[in-house]
């Protein structure tokens, strides 16, 4: 009895061991002959899924998309080795565990062309941006000596669809969630501490890139230099116009006057 229990435990707990056994690289112990390794893999995924129950409050539609796609446990089965490896890192913050999981889910959906995969990527990116902004708002404001400063947190994400359309379909469990038409967009996720507000703002590509380079604060020379390195469209007048618009909206603060080359 002990031998088969030990084998099961090793398959579930030693990163990579089960994969190597399934691939025929390592033999299975005699007591474990006949063990359904595919189901054992799925059980490992199930355990990892349950151990991430605390993640779903911030990513409800990501989880729903996984379930509607019929691949929730399978995704966690693929994530199991990473989960085990991270679990062995002493003192790893919960935020980093969740960040790793969500990154894996996005990567997995992004790599396959299955039905609903691109819509799932949109939802993952949308919920992660919301989560990251909420996390940043919980931190004290950094006091940086910069000419251009966000008010208070900006994250810019490129999405292939309108996430609200997908979420509305997911909410009612409609299969149409996986068929939502592509509507590419850039979205700025804007968090304001004093107002306890998080707003999403659709922006054009030029604005998206300018705002995404601001980070926690930047000086005009550094901003221009970075943007010019991407594309010679980013001239001083173009960047000035974007910054002025963002400042008018209250998204950034320009230490007067913004000195651009």
């Amino acid at each position: 009895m002990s031998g088969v229990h030990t084998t099961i435990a090793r398959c579930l707990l030693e990163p990579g061991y089960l994969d190597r056994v399934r691939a025929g690289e390592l033999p299975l112990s005699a007591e474990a002959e006949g063990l359904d390794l595919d189901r054992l893999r799925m059980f490992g995924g199930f355990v990892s899924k349950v151990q991430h129950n605390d993640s779903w409050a911030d990513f409800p539609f990501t989880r729903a998309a996984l379930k509607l796609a019929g691949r929730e446990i399978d995704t966690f089965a693929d994530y199991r080795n990473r989960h085990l490896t991270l679990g062995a890192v002493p003192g790893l913050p919960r935020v980093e565990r969740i960040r790793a999981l969500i990154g894996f889910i996005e990567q997995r959906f992004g790599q396959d062309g299955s039905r609903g995969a691109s819509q799932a990527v949109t939802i993952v990116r949308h919920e992660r941006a919301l989560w990251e902004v909420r996390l940043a708002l919980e931190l004290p404001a950094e006091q940086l000596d910069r000419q251009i400063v966000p008010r208070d947190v900006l994250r810019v994400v490129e999405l292939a669809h309108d996430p609200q359309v997908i979420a509305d379909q997911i909410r009612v469990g409609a299969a149409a969630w996986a068929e939502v038409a592509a509507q590419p967009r850039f979205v700025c996720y804007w968090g304001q501490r004093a107002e306890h507000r998080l707003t999403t703002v659709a922006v054009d590509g030029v604005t998206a890139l300018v705002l995404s380079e601001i980070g926690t604060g930047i000086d005009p020379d550094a901003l221009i230099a970075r943007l010019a390195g991407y594309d010679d469209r980013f001239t001083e007048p173009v960047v000035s116009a974007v910054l002025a618009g963002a400042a008018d909206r209250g998204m950034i603060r320009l230490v007067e006057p913004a000195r651009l080359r």
Partner: protein
Amino acid sequence: MAYSARTPTFLARHPELVDYVEVPFEMLRHNPATFDLLANVPVVLHCASLSVAGSVPPKPEVLDEVAGWAVRTGTPWIGEHLSFILADRELAGPSADPYAPGEPWNIGYTVSPQLTEQTLDRVVAALAAAEAKLPAPLLLENPPIYFPIPGSTMTQVQFVAELCQRTEIGLLLDLAHFYITARNLGLDPVEQLAGYPVERVVEVHLSGLDEEAGSLWDNHAARAPQAELDLLELVLARASVRAVTLEYNWSTQFPETVLLAELDRVHSVTAAVSVG
């Protein structure tokens, strides 16, 4: 109901609806302050640390802690799983895994054991050892079987029936686990229940389940299917069950309206059996 982060709020809003809260020992061990949130409601202790069906016993201090919380909560019984959580690491031979060398493997989740005479003997001994130290009786909960264990010589129903012949153990019948096991093994749940020592059932668990990759999986964030309520009715007709626990404790998003509806659903079954 099984404890979740929303339980204190639910209790404050609907104190008349909850007869007791079932709390995991592991949660109390990790966060003893949880108990302070349950000052006005009876507590039933649940446990997943004794590994009664494994070859590696828990450390003595674990049993002491379980006993301590049993006293502190005043629990009428302690639910534990017919499972193994710990396994001999040395039997695995040379291993590249540097994690906790010298320590047994700790799966961190209950796993249905190999069902044999040898396991029966171990469980009988483990129960005796545990009950000698615990101030409240143990109830043994049936785990879900997601994959058969090679070398098993009996079904779970046969195993539990034989265990009840050899001991006075009471049972915690988890109907989600029971249904999952039957379906995953291609068996009829109602037929399986006919052979189960239902007269020993003291407590029943209800929760939801998922289906993926051709198997059923436990899900405490979904509503129990009607099949479980049908099984509950059969159980109540045969046994003097003292408690029915709703295990909807895996999601803080589980709607209160749904929980209220589930309480109504269970009450309708228990009331119908009482009247009948």
